[in-house]
């Protein structure tokens, strides 16, 4: 049944769902909610969502369970029956969305591409762990009042400027 209020609500919902700022605000609120519910299982604080740390916890946690090793991971994952599963969730959620909206398309690359991406991922995880979080946990830590994380974000923005300048120069050289 068409009605103007329903369609307005639907328009607003679809705008919100597709706007990055809505997701950013949602992650911030959910990370705080998750800490408020789950912190009894263990720290650290401001750990509600992080792609690098949660990948580390998932991989090392499963590795520890299967092989009986004791690789380091956050205590929230060490104490729980299974480690944090957010990264598995992101993969599932994005897959469902891509399938539902017909945006799933296999894109292959060369062996060289795979090698570069593999090394990139390897380095990014190690660098993120040295700092203690990926860009997302850095944002949460900043919101929690950690100024070191704010320094990380500024440095990351500078790194992005340098990377963009590098790409532009390389593109110009290829044009010439």
């Amino acid at each position: 049944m068409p009605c103007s209020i329903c369609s307005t609500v639907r328009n607003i919902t679809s705008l919100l769902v597709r706007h990055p700022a809505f997701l950013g605000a949602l992650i911030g609120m959910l990370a705080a909610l998750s800490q408020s519910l789950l912190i009894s299982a263990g720290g650290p604080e401001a750990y509600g969502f992080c792609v690098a740390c949660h990948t580390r916890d998932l991989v090392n946690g499963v590795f520890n369970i299967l092989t009986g090793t004791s690789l380091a991971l956050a205590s929230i994952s060490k104490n729980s029956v299974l480690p944090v599963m957010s990264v598995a969730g992101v993969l599932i959620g994005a897959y469902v969305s891509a399938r539902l909206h017909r945006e799933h398309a296999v894109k292959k690359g060369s062996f060289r591409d795979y090698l570069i991406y593999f090394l990139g991922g390897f380095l990014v995880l190690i660098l993120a762990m040295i700092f203690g979080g990926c860009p997302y946990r850095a944002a949460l830590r900043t919101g929690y009042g950690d100024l070191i994380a704010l320094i990380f974000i500024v440095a990351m923005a500078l790194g992005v400027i340098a990377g963009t300048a590098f790409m532009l120069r390389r593109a110009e050289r290829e044009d010439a």
Partner: protein
Amino acid sequence: MATGVLPMETAIYAVPALTLLLGVLIGYLAQRSGFCSIGGFRDFFLFRHTRILSGYLALIAFSFLGYLLFWTLTPAAMEHFFWALTSGPLTPVPGAPAGLGLAASVMLAVIPGFLVGFICVLLGGCPIRQAVMTSEGNYKAAFFLLGMAVASPVFAAFVSGWVVLMVKSLGLGA
């Protein structure tokens, strides 16, 4: 020791379940919106587009508001909020290699921050964007995630210790 709403016995089961649920929701919306931290800064510097950057800025602002809200509701779960006031202005929240001095903490934020920004912008996205692209069928992004997965035990077993040794040999230990 901070205590949350759920007691320890329940929380240890809720941790994987709830994080999986949050992950699915975040992954779904990230695929819809093209959410990316690195991409936001890149689009801003290249084209002055603010759409994607608004996501990351909203994340910072709303994580503060969210922690503030839940700090008032459940203060026991937010033991050290607001961190700079309760734990010292330049003490990092635990996560990185522990037992380092102030100069080391700053150094271990600036160098990784710069390099993460540089590498990720060349590879077209931050870790969450790589995960979303993997789910969209991008094999290159899948190798990025594989690299992260392989690096996890390597970091825990070797690199973490090396970093601490290196920093201490520079005289920057706590």
